């Protein structure tokens, strides 16, 4: 099962790019986006015991609703954000209502199917979503591009930063805003987890029948958990759309959900603080494959993509086999569905 002796080649390669600030900004932006998404998964899977394989759909709905409202309907960027969050949340509730009554494995398959339906819709409803072209700024009419409002803000942040640091990286403001969001979301979730509401979620994870016997409306609580994850997913979706400057169906493949699962597992089940750490570690490794100049034969572009896929796969297999609680998680948080 070895991937060719070529995999060892990076050792012979210089690590110059590791001192490149662009590398770190790119790692930081992706890590932050996936930290936000993985926080939603932590709430669902880590603390409520619902295995949500549909995060990519919430991200897609967040990004697409925002881009469609701004580009097609001429809404202001700032107004489109709450509307997109609301749409994603509504979608989460609609999906959760029938499917949260199911057993964990059925729920996982159902959410994965739901995410694929959303992606199929994005690919095929061309008039609305641009199909396989995706949504991007119309160069003939650049006045209503979704990144415009963001670009203005971004520039003013960088003007301010320039007082201390000449020539900051262009993505620095995005990085700052994303990580402030990560911090706020982590704090809010940690606070919620300590509240009585959070204790009910854990009770549901440990023993749903017992929680029900205590008079808790368990489906209702699970629905709230899913809705919050939908909100976090859609926020991750916006930031991805701002980072990539396009909204494209391929950016919301099921793989995206499992990137977030890798982040979650790496950080540790049942630990909100671990998520940020897991995200940075995961994207450091994954972006590393892009930034380190691997020699072209044998490392073609598709092979580097394959390498990233293999790293994700091996990480999931290895962690599940040897350390299912992740690097910082607690062993007892991993007893799901036995």
């Amino acid at each position, binding site marked *: 099962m070895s991937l060719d002796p070529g995999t060892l080649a990076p050792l012979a390669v210089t690590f110059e790019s590791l001192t490149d600030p662009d590398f770190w900004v790119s790692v930081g932006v992706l890590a932050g986006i996936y930290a936000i998404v993985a926080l939603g998964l932590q709430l669902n899977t880590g603390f409520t015991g619902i295995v949500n394989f549909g995060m990519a759909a919430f991200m897609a709905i967040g990004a697409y609703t925002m881009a469609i409202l701004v580009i097609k309907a001429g809404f202001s960027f700032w107004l489109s954000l709450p509307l997109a969050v609301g749409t994603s949340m509504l979608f989460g509730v609609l999906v959760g209502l029938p499917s949260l009554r199911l057993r964990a494995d*059925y729920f996982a398959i159902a959410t994965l*199917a739901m995410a694929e339906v959303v992606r199929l819709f994005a690919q095929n409803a061309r008039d609305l979503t641009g199909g396989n072209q995706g949504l991007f700024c119309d160069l003939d009419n650049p006045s209503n591009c979704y990144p415009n409002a963001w670009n203005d803000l971004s520039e003013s942040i960088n003007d301010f930063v320039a007082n201390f640091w000449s020539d900051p990286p262009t993505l620095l403001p995005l990085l700052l805003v994303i990580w402030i969001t990560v911090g706020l979301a982590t704090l809010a979730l940690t606070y919620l987890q300590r509240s009585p509401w959070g204790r009910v979620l854990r009770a549901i994870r440990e023993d749903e029948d017992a929680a029900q016997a205590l008079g808790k409306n368990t489906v209702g609580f699970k629905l709230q958990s899913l809705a919050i994850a939908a909100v976090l997913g859609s926020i991750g979706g916006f930031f991805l759309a701002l980072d990539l400057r396009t909204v494209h169906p391929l950016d919301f493949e099921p793989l995206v959900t499992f990137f977030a699962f890798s982040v979650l597992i790496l950080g540790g089940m049942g630990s909100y603080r671990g998520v940020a750490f897991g995200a940075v570690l995961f994207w450091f490794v994954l972006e590393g494959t892009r930034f380190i100049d691997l020699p072209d034969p044998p490392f073609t572009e598709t092979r580097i993509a394959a390498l990233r896929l293999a790293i994700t796969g091996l990480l999931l297999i290895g962690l599940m086999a040897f350390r299912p609680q992740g690097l910082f998680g607690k062993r007892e948080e991993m007893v799901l569905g036995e």
Partner: protein
Amino acid sequence: MEAGQLTERVTPAMGERLRERLRRQPWLGALVVIALIFLALVAGEGLHAVAQTGVNGLSLGAIYALGAVGLTLVYGILRLVNFAHGDFLTFGAYMAYLINVTWGMPLVIGVFWAMVATALLGLLFERLLWGPMRAKRAGFLQLILMSIGLAFLLRAIIQWFWSTEIRVLDVNTTSTVEFLGLRIGQTQLVVVIVGVVVLIAVGLMLRLTLLGKRMRALSDDLELAETAGIDTRRVINYTWIFAGALAGLAGVLAAAITDLRPELGFELLLPIFAAVILGGIGDAFGALAAGMVIGVMTEWSTLVIDARWKTAVGFLVLVIVLIIRPQGIFGRAKAI
């Protein structure tokens, strides 16, 4: 007034009887629904179009069914939701490509090699991953994420060696056979025949042989089967050989009527899951029938909606089944 009372007394009783009947034999309900869809389509689009798309549906259905039988056996016996099953199909397809195109040998040899290689792959992972994980009493989330990791790893290996380029097997895609006024592609005909013959053979084997009986015993209760003196390890190995060989075959058939890409199997996985759930988890016959039904429904859908949307049919079936009857049309009402 009296007539009203009479109908009031009779109707609930009849509804009750019907509901009772449907509860015990839900596949009857499914059959009625399919028949109604068939009649509606014939009325709207004509018998010829319905039959023509139906033939396409049978070849797609054979692929779904072959994939679903293995997935459902593994799911039922080992309680493993194997998300890597789709990539078993891809692996089989590329193994056949290796023999058939790279080495220029006949496809028949490619098919055999694909089945053998994929069966060995199934055994390998049983030995390396699933056996040890069962011994550790791994939880559901551990196993499901591990199978997803395995799916990515397999896809990565295929992408490493064969890149993402779209490839085709060396099959005749142009000549067609005329049959009752239907134009059927030669390859497609072979796919339907091979698929149906293999499926019947598998069905008979599961029903008539001792191995099939043992598999069903394990599926009911693995520990009880072990207590009853069944060599569970051997049966589990046979299950993987079955699942692997059928997945390999399904992959080659899918590649023969479409093309080869590293995502081939992962894209087939969700309709195959739909067949597994519709047929009732662990029920090989259910998976067989459900795979065929979903294949035919998918192709029939192209008569009324744009073909771009046909993949959604499998998902739609999945969602409807999960909402209405998660134990499947053949499944017994266990705790879902």
